[in-house]
């Protein structure tokens, strides 16, 4: 019987599989950031341990860097301490680090791929649940907790139970107005927040392979929102073309040889998945979350649902609580909901294509006067690229703020936060209560919808924007 892509990568990374114990899995690349690492480094020091493979470890500041101009100091003393601790720890243990303002700095899941250090067939971990993003490259990438960060630093391995496999096939072509974000919102909405628990998902089908690498990353990024540990897309020419010429990969013949090897990272035709889900791409529509978990999804053209639509008492309750928190009335057309803040950023949607999609909508328009709109590019490289294309000017002319890279309002650790009761259209991945600031109300959308919403002041499709 053939093997799935996940099983191939898994098998290749087994260091030991002692009876009655989890498999000891080798980790090829460990990405580190300031929030989940200080206690891990602390633990190493406490026990007199070192970092086993600094050459398989890469660190960047992202979660709580302010997005103000780099010349302004980090005012929050706690953030400053974390950022300093990251640099000190990396220097002490010999790890390459990109501090705030460094040309390679950015959100950890943006920089791995753009530097070409994320590669097919690898096992990749990071102390952040959206590590699943890297699975777009046909690598097994998943989030870990701080004590696992310490474990990987010390041993370059992780004891792991083998996950089950699930294929999610998005069959046929998606309509032109449907973005990668809409695809993954539909998947999360279908699976529910727990539907993927215990599984590694492989995304398949024409609507997935039609996506660019950036779109695939958006899809894999939100695997965790369906409860899955990781999401994967098989390697194809799109993958290889994306990586060619990046700093982390070799050049010339050496690259082509490597690429040939990468092309084996696909599921065999006769591989069997433990679970399968098929979604008809032609039925997908631009979508938005209305509630406080990412599975609470509705069409942009739809209405806020009512608790009465659910039979399960748990879901009915959850719906009531979400509606109350979100300050929404059942039956309200989504397009009538006004927003206070538009945030375009995060490891879900802050790559260059996302910024291009947003810029195409706002060019020549003005942000509604009631709206604060921010663009936070995913990395300095993305920012530089966008500026070389003049996108910054388009955004600034339209009334957007153009910020320095970081996680920013995705999780509200830095000063970019929603105030109590404020409502956002956000290109991020989590709409939990208080995620973007205490009492803030988050609606997850694609970059194009976020951009149109900024112009209109209420949720809107790009087609509604225009002279």
């Amino acid at each position, binding site marked *: 019987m053939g093997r799935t892509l996940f099983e191939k990568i898994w098998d290749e990374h087994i*260091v030991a599989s002692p009876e009655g114990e989890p498999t000891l899995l*080798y980790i090829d690349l460990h990405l580190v950031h300031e929030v989940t690492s200080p206690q891990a480094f602390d633990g190493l020091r406490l026990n007199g341990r070192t970092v086993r493979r600094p050459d398989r470890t890469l660190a960047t500041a992202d979660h709580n860097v302010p997005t103000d101009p780099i010349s302004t100091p980090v005012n929050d003393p706690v953030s400053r301490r974390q950022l300093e601790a990251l640099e000190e720890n990396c220097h002490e243990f010999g790890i390459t680090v990109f501090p705030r303002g460094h040309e390679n700095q950015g959100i950890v899941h943006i920089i791995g791929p753009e530097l070409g250090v994320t590669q097919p067939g690898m096992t990749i971990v990071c102390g952040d649940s959206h590590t699943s993003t890297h699975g777009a490259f046909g690598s097994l990438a998943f989030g870990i907790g701080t004590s696992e960060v310490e474990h990987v630093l010390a041993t370059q391995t992780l004891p792991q139970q083998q996950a089950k496999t699930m294929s999610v096939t998005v069959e046929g072509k998606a309509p032109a107005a449907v973005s990668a974000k809409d695809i993954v919102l539909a998947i999360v909405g279908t699976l529910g927040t727990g539907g993927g628990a215990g599984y590694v998902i492989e995304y398949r089908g024409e609507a997935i392979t039609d996506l660019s690498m950036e779109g695939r990353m958006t899809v894999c990024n939100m695997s965790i929102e369906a409860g899955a540990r990781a999401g994967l897309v098989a390697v194809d020419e799109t993958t290889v073309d994306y990586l060619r010429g990046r700093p982390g990969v070799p050049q010339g013949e050496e690259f082509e040889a490597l690429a040939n090897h990468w092309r084996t990272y696909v599921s065999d035709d006769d591989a069997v998945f433990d679970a399968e889900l098929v979604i008809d791409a032609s039925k997908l529509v631009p979508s938005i979350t209305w509630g406080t978990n990412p599975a609470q999804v509705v069409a942009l053209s739809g209405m806020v649902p009512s608790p009465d639509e659910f039979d399960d008492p748990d879901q009915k309750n959850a719906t009531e609580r979400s509606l109350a928190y979100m300050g929404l009335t059942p039956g309200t057309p989504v397009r009538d909901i006004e927003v206070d803040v538009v945030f375009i950023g995060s490891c879900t949607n802050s790559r260059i294509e996302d910024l291009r999609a947003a810029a195409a909508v706002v060019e020549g328009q003005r942000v509604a006067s009631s709206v604060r709109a921010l663009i936070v590019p995913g990395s300095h490289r993305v920012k530089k690229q966008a500026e070389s294309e003049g996108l910054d000017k388009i955004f600034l002319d339209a009334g957007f703020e153009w910020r320095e890279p970081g996680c920013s309002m995705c999780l509200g650790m830095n000063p970019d936060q929603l105030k109590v009761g404020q409502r956002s259209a956000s290109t991020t991945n989590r709409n939990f209560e208080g995620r973007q600031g205490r009492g803030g109300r988050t609606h997850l959308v694609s970059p194009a919808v976020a951009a149109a919403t900024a112009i209109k002041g209420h949720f809107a499709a790009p087609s509604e924007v225009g002279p």
Partner: protein
Amino acid sequence: MKPVRVLEGRAVPLERSDVDTDQIIPSDWLKRVERTGFGRGLFSEWRDDPSFVLNDQSYVGASILIAGPRFGTGSSREHAVWALMDYGFVAVIAPSFGDIFRNNSSKQGLVIVQLPQVDVEGLIQLIKDDATRLVVIDVDQLRVEVPEAGWQRSFELDPMTRERLLHGWDDIGLTMRREAAITKYETTSHAPTLVGVFDSDGHAR
């Protein structure tokens, strides 16, 4: 970490489903670089509310948390476990848990007891009827009991987690028993490293 065999304490019911890690410990708290003191941030968005269950005097000092389904979903932050333990919880009982949360818990000695929803509801009722009732969790026998009410259920733990709790084993130490295998793997693996990719200032070569 300390070995855990039998836990005994009073319990507090948190009757909510989908308590995610952002709610267990809001992100403000993630900025700390220490490992201690997170208990003050536990459920901090709810603690201002006098009617929140942890503010109920009858549950003060409870060391076992009983919650609704899908407890601990969301982000990978281990701070959620630190917060629960720093506050004084030694175990969480719920119908289901977030994967990463469950995993993080087992590494630090927070005991995760998964029971069918009806049993969790039954247990919550017992505690609501009388908050002084003691709950006993036996990690060795994989049993949870309210002896005073004659209530008893068994639960499952994967064998490794059970052993680890019973012995108080540290993860890294366990793995390094296999260092020879790791070294051998490293000599045969061809996965690229970062050698030569960046200079000492982190600039791409």
